[in-house]
């Protein structure tokens, strides 16, 4: 078996050195980070990570307690629920809870807490709850209901999830996810999600993402849509009942912390521009992931990191920001103005063969490239799995080919996914049955016919495993601030399994937060929410207004998108499918430089007293420019490979090489203030049910 790419392709070796980024403007010599970076880049010893820089950037903080039950992970949730405090039904309306975001976790949490009788206020920047990005998920939702005789079980679900995540998530949380996942299907079905049915009338399942059992429930290619609509409807029922108040087109711009507790939020009305505060006993953030930091990803245009980032700057720890999942088969950018990368289901790799020309910069039409000049690199490099290697392996290999100059398409940024062999073997009819909707979508978007011409695909960011750190009770390091869904961190470790994200959104919202939040509230009985006239409220509003004014009055020469695009280029290059210390060090320097450039030169056209999408974008990009640095610092700090975090200096036969001895923990970053070093706290992870084991797909 050939494992070394260089052995199968003589040209690989010539491409080993990372080319210098000519496009990047020269750094101002006053930037200390950049000076250090340059010093490191000139160091010719790749085995020696720039530890000097790391020491300048971060300090190691404290061990932190995840408040994980000490019983066997299998019994953790039962045990914990038994010890939770409850709130008497007659007292529930006295508690005000703010929920931000209306995706699966937000709409679910709001509706469930409303059903229980709490006074819930829901905030969303969308016009209506149903737009939240959960709606775009295609594949399905896992649930270890184990009805078939294929030997599924909660234990097996946990094993798949923990191993898939390369042992960087919490085992106990995975158990809770599996356990509650069982009734999630019952509930979502009951409130309107019409799951696919077998001819006998029973729920249909399929297998997904390398799992050997069939536990994925689905509704065509629109599972996320059906779940999201059901959740949004359930929220609408509570809005009609008066238990949930809906505040749409309101963007959360800050968190109000008083006496060490999260007690409210500051929002901007996107229509009138008015900034106001809302106080409450607890705040739940269900505001999604930060993948759009890469500029063009598969995420919706408005998905952003602002809510979680501002909470971070108020003291919530940020867990594992460098764990970003990159999907191998998205549509590449084909022109400058293409607004995003669209996901093409990974099922296509079942019958499609991935290849790139053997000749560099090959401009020929794919039909004119003879068979012996096509390099089926996954098949040659991974004979056992071929085109079906896991997502991260496929992404890395595709990216290697593109970076080495073998990319195809107008921007030379893709490889081919070819169905010629599949059609010859199975016939057009069967291929059409299997993939017609995807082929149709591809043709709609590109104007090309994948039946006769190979698809062009490229890796794209589409999910972030990192997020705000929470304890087992889904509470952040700020008491009273809770997190649900992709905005959090705990289940997926360093790599998320397909169809586990819809599950975690639903479980967090419907069946976890409604237990954990009341446990916190019970201790506040008799206390009113923070007085809106409190100085902490006024101060937070003033901070937000100052931030908006700063952007509006900056009078630079480029809109915020200009800087976002540059940031995306840096992130794509240095913090993507594979990372190395030198590249990350360089990225940090470039990000700092870009941040300075942003504040020197950004302009926000228009005013703040009305709908202003440039102002919205500018605030989000300003946050990305800070989060991007933390992401790279985390990637530089985590001196191992794990799941999607692939460090070229830690590999074994081209696979991620974990270091369980030194790195079996969650990095929980703490905001040091505007000038201090990043503080990395850590929660040690222990594995009792699924023993530590190295992943290997060769």
């Amino acid at each position, binding site marked *: 078996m050939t494992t070394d790419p260089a052995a199968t392709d003589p040209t690989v070796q010539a491409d080993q050195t990372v080319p210098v980024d000519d496009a990047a403007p020269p750094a101002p010599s006053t930037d200390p980070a950049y000076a250090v970076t340059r010093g490191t880049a000139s160091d010719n010893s790749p085995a020696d990570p720039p530890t000097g820089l790391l020491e300048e950037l971060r300090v190691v903080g404290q061990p932190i307690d995840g408040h994980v039950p000490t019983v066997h992970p299998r019994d953790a949730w039962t045990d914990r629920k038994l010890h939770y405090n409850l709130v008497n039904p007659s007292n529930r309306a006295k508690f005000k809870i703010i929920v931000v975001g209306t995706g699966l976790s937000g709409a679910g949490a709001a509706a*469930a807490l409303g*059903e229980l009788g709490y006074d819930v206020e829901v905030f969303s920047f*969308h*016009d*209506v*709850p*149903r*737009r939240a*990005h959960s709606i*775009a998920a295609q594949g399905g939702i896992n649930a270890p209901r184990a009805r078939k005789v294929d030997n599924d079980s909660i234990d097996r679900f946990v094993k798949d999830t923990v191993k898939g995540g390369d042992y960087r998530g919490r085992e106990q949380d995975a158990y809770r996810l599996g356990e509650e996942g069982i*009734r999630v*299907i*019952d*509930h979502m*079905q*009951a*409130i*309107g999600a*019409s799951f696919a*049915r*077998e*001819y006998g*009338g*029973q729920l249909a399942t399929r297998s997904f993402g390398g799992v050997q059992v069939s536990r994925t429930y689905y*509704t*065509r290619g*629109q599972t*996320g*849509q*059906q779940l999201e609509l059901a959740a*949004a*409807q*359930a929220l*609408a*029922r509570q*809005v009609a009942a008066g238990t949930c108040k809906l505040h*749409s087109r309101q963007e959360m711009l800050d968190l109000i912390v008083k006496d060490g507790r999260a007690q409210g939020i500051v929002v901007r009305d996107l*229509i009138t521009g008015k900034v106001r505060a809302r106080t409450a006993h607890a705040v739940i953030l269900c505001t999604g992931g930060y993948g759009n930091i890469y500029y063009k990803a598969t995420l*919706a*245009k408005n998905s952003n990191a602002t809510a979680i980032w501002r909470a971070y700057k108020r003291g919530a720890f940020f867990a594992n920001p460098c764990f970003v999942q990159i999907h191998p088969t998205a549509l590449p950018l*084909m*022109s400058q*103005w*293409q*607004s995003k990368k*669209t*996901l093409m289901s990974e099922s296509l790799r079942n019958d499609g063969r991935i290849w790139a020309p053997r000749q560099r910069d090959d401009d020929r039409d794919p039909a004119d490239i003879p068979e012996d000049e096509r390099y089926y690199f996954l098949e040659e490099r991974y004979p056992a799995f071929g085109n079906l290697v896991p997502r991260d392996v496929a992404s890395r290999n595709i990216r290697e080919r593109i970076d080495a100059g073998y990319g195809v398409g107008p921007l030379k940024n893709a490889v081919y996914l070819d169905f010629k062999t599949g059609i010859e073997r199975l016939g057009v009819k069967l291929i059409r049955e299997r993939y017609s909707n995807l082929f149709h979508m591809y043709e*709609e978007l590109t*104007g090309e016919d994948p039946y006769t011409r190979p698809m062009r695909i490229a890796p794209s960011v589409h999910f972030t495993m990192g997020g705000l750190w929470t304890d087992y009770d889904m509470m952040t390091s700020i008491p009273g601030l809770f997190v649900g869904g992709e905005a959090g961190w705990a289940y997926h470790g360093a790599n998320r399994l397909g169809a586990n994200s819809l599950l975690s959104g639903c479980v967090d919202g419907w*069946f976890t937060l*409604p237990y954990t939040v009341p446990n916190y509230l019970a201790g506040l009985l008799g206390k009113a929410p923070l007085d809106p006239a409190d100085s902490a409220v006024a101060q937070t509003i003033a901070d937000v207004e100052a931030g908006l004014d700063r952007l509006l009055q900056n009078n630079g020469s480029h*809109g915020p*998108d200009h800087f976002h695009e540059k940031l995306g280029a840096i992130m794509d290059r240095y913090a993507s499918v594979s990372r190395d210390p030198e590249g990350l060090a360089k990225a940090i320097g470039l990000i700092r430089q870009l941040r300075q450039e942003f504040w020197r030169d950004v*302009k926000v*056209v*228009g005013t703040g007293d*009305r*709908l202003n*999408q*440039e102002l919205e974008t500018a605030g989000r990009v300003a946050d990305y420019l800070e989060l991007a640095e933390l992401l790279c610092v985390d990637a530089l700090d985590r001196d191992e490979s794990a799941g999607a975090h692939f460090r070229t200096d830690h590999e074994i036969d081209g696979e991620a090489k974990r270091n369980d001895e030194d790195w079996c923990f969650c990095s929980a970053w703490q905001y040091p203030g505007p000038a201090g070093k990043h503080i990395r706290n850590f929660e040690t992870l222990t594995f009792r049910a699924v023993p530590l084991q190295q992943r290997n797909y060769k």
Partner: protein
Amino acid sequence: MRLILEIWRQDRPGADGRYETHEVVDATPEMSLLELLDRLNHQLVENNTDPVAFESDCREGICGTCGVDVNGVPHGPRDNVPACGQHVRDFKDGQTVRFEPFRSKAFPVLRDLIVDRTGLDRIIQAGGTIAVDAGTAPDAETVQVTHDDAERALDFAACIGCGACVSACPNGAAYLFTGSKLAHLALIPHGKQERAKRARAMVDQMEHEFGPCSQIGECALACPAEIPLSAIAVVNRERIRAGFKKGKAN
């Protein structure tokens, strides 16, 4: 490609609006119409002019956020495709493309091409829901649904809530939207318990804000989710059925 863009501009809700003409000289056939607007906005921002406000989110046809009238047609020239999937390649070099907000009294303009579509959400709040609390549902396997019913329910449940049907209708009716939800929930077991009550409430709310059905069928041609035209008949069927039920819930 060079395209002339004629665009509705309106600063605030209730303010007077006007058409503005702009030119994009470097449009390319593979651009979507929203990307064409992105390109224009980039140009406007570089020239210190307010960009055109328009809505979009997923840009792959599922979220229902985008929605503009293009040369008088909701979403654009191709039937059953959302604005994010409409492309410049369907226009000719030098052609004028007119962008306007969705047209309906029920969708007041908030700014430029952005309208307020929460009226549709109020129809859902009125009754497009199922009264089952978290944790109380029976095992989904004990509830039999035939394959065909599940598929038929999905045909109607696919509505993305964009409001193109309302804009397409000369009467500004929301029959296709309302009918799709009534049909979806009437076809699934848990939805049947409140079927009559739901029909009364949703139809009342719909008539309160939206116009009567024109019976012409433009709505189904504009619909990016390809909701069957039969959904408009479902509204009347469910309303009449509810009338016979005389105040009963199901």
